[in-house]
């Protein structure tokens, strides 16, 4: 294999991970700031100007915390579970296109790690295994609150994955491809949110549920389950769960942008390919803001409401959308 190509892939993958982890650190700050503003508070403002060094302070604090493993816990799985949660959250980003090709030092470099012809299926595959980390964390802690949180996570993710998968089919039918680059390029004329408003809504709701974020945060409902599946975790292992959650928030926003908001497309992008990542970044920021806004606004669902919404509302809606889209694609060409 071409050594230069291998080097290019390695650099791009490392760069992506650095960007995601920095994004994770500053997303925690953004969340605290936005929540504070919504609740008429100021938020973190002590560490550095405007609290900009707060993520650094948090990181150092977590590093120096004692890492406790409960005596009756299943040690192997207890240590593995945070890793199983973080790794899918990171590798799912490998197929997300940040832009088209740009020229760096006379070399054509494409702004994505991989463009495979089963890109969206890869996303589904990685998303579907993300539930193991949370479920196993709950089981291995040997704590009843943690176990209940893990079980809730498993049931919730299975219930919402079907509607999520079906909502992805709308853009796939319109673009005629499973590759995310093709899906973005198919939106040059018009963003898919215009043709697929229902799929966009279903995708957004189900992905909030897959993220286990408010109003779907039953697996870690503080008032009932202490902290749910990560009750027994401390130190860096606890930080890894948070890392996974926030990296997944970034991923979901990026996927929403790629599937429905035209990804890296925007004015003058065809002349200046460097604008692509900037447009995508702005669209991701919008998605993240809405996610935080939801958390600040909506109370948590009850468990039966969660199941009813998933199976009786979102799943039929997504199915209906697929049938209508398929018929229209065939009729209109």
């Amino acid at each position: 294999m071409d050594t230069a190509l291998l080097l290019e892939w390695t650099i791009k993958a490392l760069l992506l991970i650095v960007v995601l982890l920095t994004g994770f650190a500053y997303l925690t700050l953004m969340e605290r700031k936005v929540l504070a503003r919504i609740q008429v508070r100021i938020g973190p403002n002590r560490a550095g100007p405007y609290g900009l060094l707060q993520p650094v302070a948090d990181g150092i604090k977590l590093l120096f915390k004692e890492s406790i493993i409960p005596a009756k816990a299943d040690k192997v799985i207890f240590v593995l579970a945070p890793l199983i949660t973080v790794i899918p959250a990171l590798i799912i980003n490998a197929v997300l296109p940040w832009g088209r090709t740009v020229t760096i030092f006379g070399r054509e470099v494409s702004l994505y790690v991989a463009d495979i012809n089963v890109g969206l299926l890869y996303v589904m595959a990685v998303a579907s295994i993300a539930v193991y980390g949370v479920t196993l964390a709950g089981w291995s802690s040997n704590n009843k609150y943690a176990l209940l949180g893990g079980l809730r996570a498993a049931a919730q993710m299975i219930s919402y994955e079907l509607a999520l998968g079906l909502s992805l089919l709308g853009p796939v039918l319109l673009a005629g491809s499973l590759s995310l680059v093709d899906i973005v390029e198919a939106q040059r004329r018009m963003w898919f949110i215009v043709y697929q408003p229902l799929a966009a809504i279903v995708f957004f709701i189900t992905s909030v549920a897959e993220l286990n974020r408010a109003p779907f945060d039953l697996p870690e409902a503080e008032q009932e389950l202490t902290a749910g599946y990560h009750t027994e975790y401390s130190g860096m292992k606890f930080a890894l769960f948070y890392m996974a959650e926030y990296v997944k928030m970034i991923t979901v926003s990026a996927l929403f942008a790629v599937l429905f908001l035209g990804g890296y497309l925007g004015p003058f992008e065809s002349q200046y390919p460097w604008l692509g990542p900037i447009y995508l970044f702005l669209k991701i920021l919008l998605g993240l803001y809405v996610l935080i806004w939801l958390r600040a606004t909506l109370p948590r669902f009850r468990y039966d409401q969660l199941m009813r919404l998933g199976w009786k509302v979102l799943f039929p809606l997504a199915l209906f959308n697929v049938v209508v889209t398929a018929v229209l694609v065939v009729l209109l060409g």
Partner: protein
Amino acid sequence: MGLMTVFILTGAVAIAAALGLLFARNAVYAVLFLVLNMFALAVLYLLLGAPFIAMVQIVVYAGAIMVLFLFVVMLLGAEELKEDGGPIGWQRPLALVLGVVLLAELAYFVFAASATKARLLPSPDGFGDPHAVGLTLFQKYLLPFEVTSVLLLVAMVGAIVLVRNGKRTADEPTGSDAD
């Protein structure tokens, strides 16, 4: 050369995971070994140039079915497997015999195939990509595909009917809304 190394490593992982599944005394570990085995199979599909099947293998088996297995094991608290196999312990010798028969059949066909020196044709362009799989499935194998889907639907309806009957007999007298 590189592909051969990956193949051998993946095969070793698959076999080790299968053995781990058989000998694990804890049902949660057994489930996890099976998940690992399915991942190894997905990698093997990738090596064979069938990315679509590889991804579907992970989505369906590792991502959905095994999560349900894990969910049921955890929900019932059935982690500890009994040394004598419990009420289905009598199946062990039978399983051994059937396993040996299957292995013998496999060995026979492998050796018979290598004796005839059948050349494997190189796979055509675009083999195994979503487009090709879709066309084959909905043109050449449309009837079997539809029959299978009806069979799955029947199984699903059957499961719901069984659950509903059980519920009606054990329903609370208050008649709270059971949807």
